Each structure stands twice: as C-alpha cells, then as structure tokens.
C-alpha cells in the first residue's frame, strides 16, 4: 500500500509554484526500456507545472494501449478507460466541469481504429480537450499487429504477407473533421514537444497533437527520417506562423505553391527567392493546412512539424453552458413543484 496523499503539500498551495516532481506518482513506470513514451511523459511532467493551473484541476483520460497507461504515472486526477472511448469519457467530464483541464492520451490504434468515431465527433464539436495521440504505427500492447497508420504492405504478425490496408494520415483526418487546433511533434525533440504542449494547453477548444513515437520493440525506426538530429535538420520542416516554408540544414530548401500543390524548390536556384515561398498561415480557413499534411515526405518533400492549424471557434462546453444559462434567464430556475404538475391536474377529495 502506498502512503496516503499528503494534503498539506498540495491542497493549501494549489497556486504556489509547482515543479515536475509534483506530477510524478509513486507507481513504477512500466514501458519497455527505450520506449518513446518516456520522453513524452517527461515533457508533460515538465510543462504542466508551468501552466498556472492548480494540480487538482488536471484530469488525464486514456483508452487502452501502451500510451493509455499514462494516467497512472501522472499525479493528477486520471481515468484509464476502455478501448477507444477516452474522447467520449473526457467529453462528459469537460461538459460537466468546463473549469477542469482535461487531457486525452491515446494511440494510433486506440484513437483511429476502435475509437475513430469518437475522435471525429469530439473534433467537430470542438470540445475543449487536449489530445495527445502517440503514433507509433503499430499495436504495441497486443504485441505487434499493424495499425491504421501502418504503411500499406507492412508485414506484421497479423499480416505475414503484408497488410492490404491504406493508412490514415492523422493530420488530414483531424483537419477533415474540422479540428480547430492540429499539430505534430516527435518524441525525441523535447524542446519542440514542450512548445507544442504549451500551445495546445493555451488553445480554447479541441487540440489534436500527433506525436511521432518510436516503438523500439515492434516497429523500430518507423520515423527514421526525422529521428536523428542530423536527418531531422535535413527532413523536418518546422512550421512557423507568418514565416515562409523553409527547411534543410542550410535552410535553402523551401515549398512553393504551384497550382494546388506545394512544390519543393531550392532558394537561389532557377531564380527562386524566399519571396516565392509559401507563407504559413495557421489561421487560414482554406485547405493550405491539408496540402502540408498530405506531403509525401522524404525523399520528395520534408515532413512538417508544428502547428498546422489554429482557428478560434466557440467550444462545445461553452455553447452547452450558455444554453443552460439562457434557459435559466428566460424561464427562471426550475420550480420542481410546478414541473411535476405540468399539464392538467385535478383533485380527488376524500369520500
């Protein structure tokens, strides 16, 4: 048995400065050695104390899979639910208590296979949930079957001759569901991940963050192109609002809009200057974010990292609460005695 929670340390000092250790539980972390999940846990534990939110206001909700063990390792309120249903459980929490900071931790199988329906509906409603989707392109906890993000033809235990499925692109899926905040990061890039986590926390509405996460047991090297520092500086395109789409070690390569395509070009060659490059606009209501999301990746194009889209739309919970407040203003607080007598009533006198 663990020791009872120390009240004095937390309750009285909710607003007091917090540190990473406030968010560490006494539970032994049981991911495989070398798993990318450790780095994500570390980043979250570092970012939460900075957000100015009392610890008791955090709720982490997860489904099933390796990623979904996350809540057990965070000293906040946590709910490890059932496969695929975390967004729906979290929706109930957030609508009931909009003041809570509710985070959903999920994986590519949990969010996009069994839980696909809840993900798209959460995003279209714009429920104020922060969704961290660890994408390792494999089922880890069930020991190595292909997932909805595995590449076509992938040989796994359940696809010995290669999978026949075409994969989802999680970013285009989220954009297609009209998500109001869509971003990508990677487990090995701690500073970038923390920036994105802060941005997600600050967003008012659903924040969908795909985190490339290496499963070194069942799908090692899935993100080889952007994993090592060297290759990342060559292949990753760091999206910055209002800045031209530049990438590459010497920042000479860029993307130019050609018809409805983003075309890789080299600045200084064939008369191309920085002014010809497409300028990233996070708030654009049009399809630019989709073009970025659909880039095929190396060797033809870079892989974008960062915020694809952030737009401001009223949240679901705010709309629901507003409607309740409006009804209270219009009709007054409900009088139960009146309600149970609604319609015609009559009195039977004692004989």
């Amino acid at each position, binding site marked *: *048995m*663990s020791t*009872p*929670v*120390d*009240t004095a340390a*937390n*309750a*009285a000092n*909710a607003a007091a400065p917090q540190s990473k250790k406030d968010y560490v539980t006494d*539970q032994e972390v049981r991911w495989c050695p070398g798993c990318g999940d450790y780095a994500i846990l570390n980043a979250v534990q570092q970012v939460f104390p900075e957000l100015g939110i*009392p*610890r*008791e*206001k*955090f709720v982490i909700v*997860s489904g*099933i899979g390796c990623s979904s063990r996350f*809540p*057990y390792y965070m000293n906040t*309120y946590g*709910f*490890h*639910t*059932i496969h695929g*249903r975390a967004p*729906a*459980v979290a*929706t*109930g*929490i*957030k*609508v*009931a*208590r909009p*003041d*809570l900071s509710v985070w959903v931790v999920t994986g590519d199988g949990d969010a996009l296979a069994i839980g696909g*329906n809840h993900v798209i*509906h959460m995003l279209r409603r714009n429920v104020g949930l922060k969704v961290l989707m660890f994408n390792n392109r494999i089922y880890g906890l069930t020991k190595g079957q292909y997932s909805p993000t595995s590449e076509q033809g992938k040989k796994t235990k359940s696809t010995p001759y290669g999978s026949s499925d075409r994969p989802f692109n999680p970013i285009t899926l989220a954009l297609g569901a009209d998500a109001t905040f869509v971003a990508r990061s990677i487990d090995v890039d701690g500073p970038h991940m923390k920036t994105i986590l802060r941005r997600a926390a600050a967003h008012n509405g659903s924040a969908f963050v795909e985190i490339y996460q290496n499963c070194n047991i069942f799908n090692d090297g899935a993100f080889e192109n952007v994993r090592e520092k060297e290759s990342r500086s060559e292949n990753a395109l760091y999206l910055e609002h209002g800045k031209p789409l530049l990438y590459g070690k010497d920042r000479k390569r860029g993307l130019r809009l050609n018809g409805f395509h983003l075309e890789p070009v080299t600045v200084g060659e064939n008369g191309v200057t920085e002014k010809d490059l497409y300028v990233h606009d996070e708030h654009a209501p049009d399809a630019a974010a989709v073009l970025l999301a659909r880039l095929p990746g190396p060797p033809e194009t870079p892989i974008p990292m960062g915020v694809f889209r952030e737009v401001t739309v009223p949240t679901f919970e705010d709309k629901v609460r507003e409607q*309740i407040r409006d*009804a*209270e203003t*219009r*009709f*007054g*607080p*409900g009088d*139960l005695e009146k*309600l*149970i*007598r*609604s*319609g*015609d*009533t*009559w*009195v*039977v006198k*004692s*004989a």
Partner: protein
Amino acid sequence: MSTTEKTPAGTRRVETIDDVIIRFAGDSGDGMQITGGQFTATSAIVGNDIASFPDFPAEIRAPAGTLPGVSGFQLHFASSDIYTPGDAPDVLVAMNPAALKVNLGDLKRSGTIIVNKDAFAQKDLDKAGYKSNPLEDGSLAAYRVIALDLTRLTKTALESTGLSSREMERCKNFFSLGIMYWLYGRPLEPTLRFIKEQFKKNEKYVEANTLALKAGYTFGEATEVFQITYEVPPASLPPGEYRNINGNTALTLGAITAARNAGLELFLGSYPITPASDILHEMSRYVNYGVCTVQAEDEIAAVTSSLGAAFAGCLAMTTTSGPGVALKTEAIGLATMVELPLVIANIQRGGPSTGLPTKTEQADLFQALFGRNSEAPVPVIAAQTSGDCFYAMYEAARIALKYMTPVILLSDGYLANGSEPWLIPDLSKLAPMVVRKRTDAAGFHPYLRDPGTNARPWAVPGTPGLEHRIGGLEKEDGTGNVSYEPLNHEKMVRLRAQKVASVVQDVPDAEVFGRESGDLLFVGWGSTHGAITVATRHLIAEGHSVGHLHLRWLNPMPKNLGAVLKKWKRVVVPEMNLGQLSFVLRGKFLVDALSLSKVQGRPFTESEIVEKAHEVLGGLR
C-alpha cells in the same frame, strides 16, 4: 342504472356504466395517437381511472391504407380502479378498412364499430385485402356497426375555413373525437386547450381543429344514430392531486427530482432509440432545472460521456433500449470496476437485434442481470406501472449514489407510452439521498470502503489533495493501485459482489397480495403488474387460493423471497419472454417455478393469465 333525457333528436337513454374499453385505429398519418391521448387525458381529468395502450408501427408512414400502416390506441376508463388497458375493446373506431381488418379480431362479441364510410371505396378495400365490402356483405352482423361519412362531414363543417381539401380531411380525427366526447359525456375544454397549444404556430389549424371537434360533438347530439349515450362516473381514487402521466415522462421527472434532492447536476448522455427517445427530448427541455443533456454520437459515447460526468461529480444517467444496452455493455463493466454512480435506463422493446422497435417486451432481464464479461454484478430495478417509473428512477438514483455503483432500471414500451392517473407525490416525503463526495484528504484512498455499504468515496476532480487514478485494470484493495495479485483479485471480485448484495438492506421484504400461503402464487416483475393484479382478483373472486408477488428489485432480490415462495404449492411466473425470471427463481431458490410466456410484442391479457391458473389449479385437484 339508467335515466332518460329529452334531446332535440328525440328520446335518448343515458346509461351509466362502470367501465369502457375503446380502441381508436387508423393510418399512421390519421392522428390516432393524438385522438387516443386526448380522450385519455380528458377522461383522467373528469376523474375516471384510466389505462392506455398506444400501439403503432415502426415505420413513420407506411403506405397509406395498408395493414402495416395501421396505428392503434386502446384506452380503458372506469369508475372503479383498473390496472390494464383491458382485454377486448367494447368500441372500435376504425378510420379505414385496414384498421377494421387488423383490429376486428380483438373486439368483444357484439361490440360497437364506428367506421369512416368515406374510406371504404374499392381502392381502399383492395389495399386492405378485402374481397368484398365488409360494411355491405354481412360479415359484421355480429357487431353493432355505425358507419358515418366522417370525411364528408368534416369537410362540410370546415367549408368556411378556406383550407384545402386535404387539409380539411386531416381534421377528421378531431371530428370523430368530438362524436366520442358526446357519446361518453366528456367536456371539450381540455382538448380545446390542447389544440390551441399544439397548433399555436398556425392560427388556421387552431380554428379548423376547434371547429372539427365542436362539429363532431354537435353532430353526435343532432344525429339519431346514437340512441344511447353513456356515463362513466368518476372513480374513487385515493384523495389528492392528480395528473395524467406516461412512463417516459414519469422517469424524466423522477431523475430530475433525484438530482434535486441530492444537490447534484443531472447529466444525461443519450443516443436516439425507440422507445426511449422521449426521455432525451423531455429532459432537454428542462435545462433550467439543473439538467445537462448531450446527444452523443453513438450508444457507447452516450454511456461513456455519462460515466465521465459521474467521475466529474454529476448524477449521471443514460437512456436506451435493448440494442443500445448491448453496445453499452463494456462501459457498464467499467462503471462496475471504477465504482461510480450511474443509472442505465433500458426501455425494453421486442428483440433480439432490431426486433420490434415500437412493441413491448421484457426479454432483457438476463441481459441486465448477466450481460457483462466476468463477474460484474449490477443492481437491477424494474418499474411496475407508468407512474411508478418516477419512483423506480428515483430509487435507482438513490442506490447508485449510496452504494457508488451503476444501477440498471428496466422499463418497457408499454409503460413508456401508456398512461395512467398519477397521484402527484409529496416531494418532501421521498427518501433522502446519500452523496459520498469527499473533500478531506487526510487518510484518503480511493478504494477505502464505507463499513455499512462497502461504497468507496467519491473524490471529484478539482478537489485539492485527492488526486488519484481509476481505471479498468484490477485494483489493489484500499489504494486502488493497479494490482495483478491473484489473492487480491479474488478479494476484489468478492468485494464488488458483496457490495451489490448489501443493497438488500434497502430492498423492502416481498409482500404477497391476496393470502399468505396457498395453492398458486404468481410472481411477476415490471409491466405485467396490472394484468397479474386483475387476474389474481378474478381468481380470488372465483374462490381460488391465489396470491400475487411482484418483484421490484431483481438484483438483489428481497431477503424473504425464498421463504415466501416455499409457502405455495405452485409458483407461476407470467413474463413477456421465454421464462427468464422463472429460470432465475429456479436457480436461486430450487423452486419449481412454472413459466407463462408471451412474446407477441403485446402485454398479457387478464384472461390469458386466468386460463393458465385454471390449468395449474386443475392439476392440483
């Protein structure tokens, strides 16, 4: 008892009768549910006891005039207390040949048929599959047939309104209702108020339907067709203030009342499904009563969002029917594991699969008791009458909160849509709620249990110092930490079972209506209450040694149940399934419970139960 009175149409008799059963039947577009509902409401207001049984097709508008498109509404009203919509109607109001054909078989021998003669053209007869016109071929000779030109009469009455012919025709249900009001001496005012409210967005429909209703009434008065009118005096119900209520409304009000008495917000996550949707509709209107509703993307999201709201401190519930419960099963298991309060209301319908969406059945008892993986016990309560849905819902919520457990509430299509006069409860007399919210962090562990009930504390997110994790993995006793320890697992399985078993302290002892012991005991549950009650009275009046025990809690069952069952020579269990309760009683109590099954999407009639009793009692002689 009868008197005579002078009317312009000549000398008429007013006959005083104790009870009448009327069935209104027509196309699903003919407004029969409104007609029946209005007659019911008005009869309740004049003080009759009532029981109604709406019976409509699953299709919104099946092809007009065909047999599958027939929608019916049976109503029983009386000056004495009644428990069912009655077996065979005295009067059938049939708006077309299809309605006549579908319903004639149920009508009492020598019963009255009122038909709309205008709807008996050759094409209408063809659609209903009549080879010859039943109004002319003598096939209805055993009945009293009153054939009226309802369509023509309605149109004549509405000539001045400027409505199209089609619009005028659609008012014929109010015209026929007017005739029936006259025939049974009912006032028009309640329906006139209803028309004003219902059509308030279109003044010309208010005018037209008002005219049609009044014209029907006047027609009844003026015509010589009806030589007898009827008076059904008020019933001697227990004193108090009454309203008319159906099961879904009662359930809605029970939930709002429970949340109010518990000082909690009510959260309803639901997905539309017949016959439960009306609860979602009604609840969504009452957001100023501390209610928050979410129409989820599917049945699973409906229950899981509710479970999330329960974690966040709401009185949470979800409403559905059998197929929806099937989808919610895994989440109910999770609720059992994380021990959060949650009410799952199953408004049962005919199954399996999509089955008979608009028809009633009570075949989800096994599903409620056993329908989860592993050992996942859940308290199960069943409402007995439409009005009782209020109390059953209140009780389900009270137990969910007191024991920190999901609770399944069983209602069915018959209770949901049927209505009865309801003695408005004194809210201050309802059982108090126990809410286990904890704020004190000293010595807190999420799975430390209350000694009396085994309930764990409710530590709601936002409470400083009580941060903790819950989830579907097995818990270590006390701390709630994940544990794979073999002995801990068995301990927790037993603890969860023991917690649900201890709900028995809140379950009143079973009481038998009739005598203490004897030849035949009926054991029922849910909506068979009315039919078994009248059958038992009938048998007792015949001099038989019979009793009736109706189970409200199906899990846990009353402490004294085993002992009571053993006092009877025969136990008969009437159920709208293939014998689910009788199976459970046999397994639990080693009693030879005989099953009386009916799975036709329709409730039991009194005579079906009486007949079975005669057979069983005959075997005892």
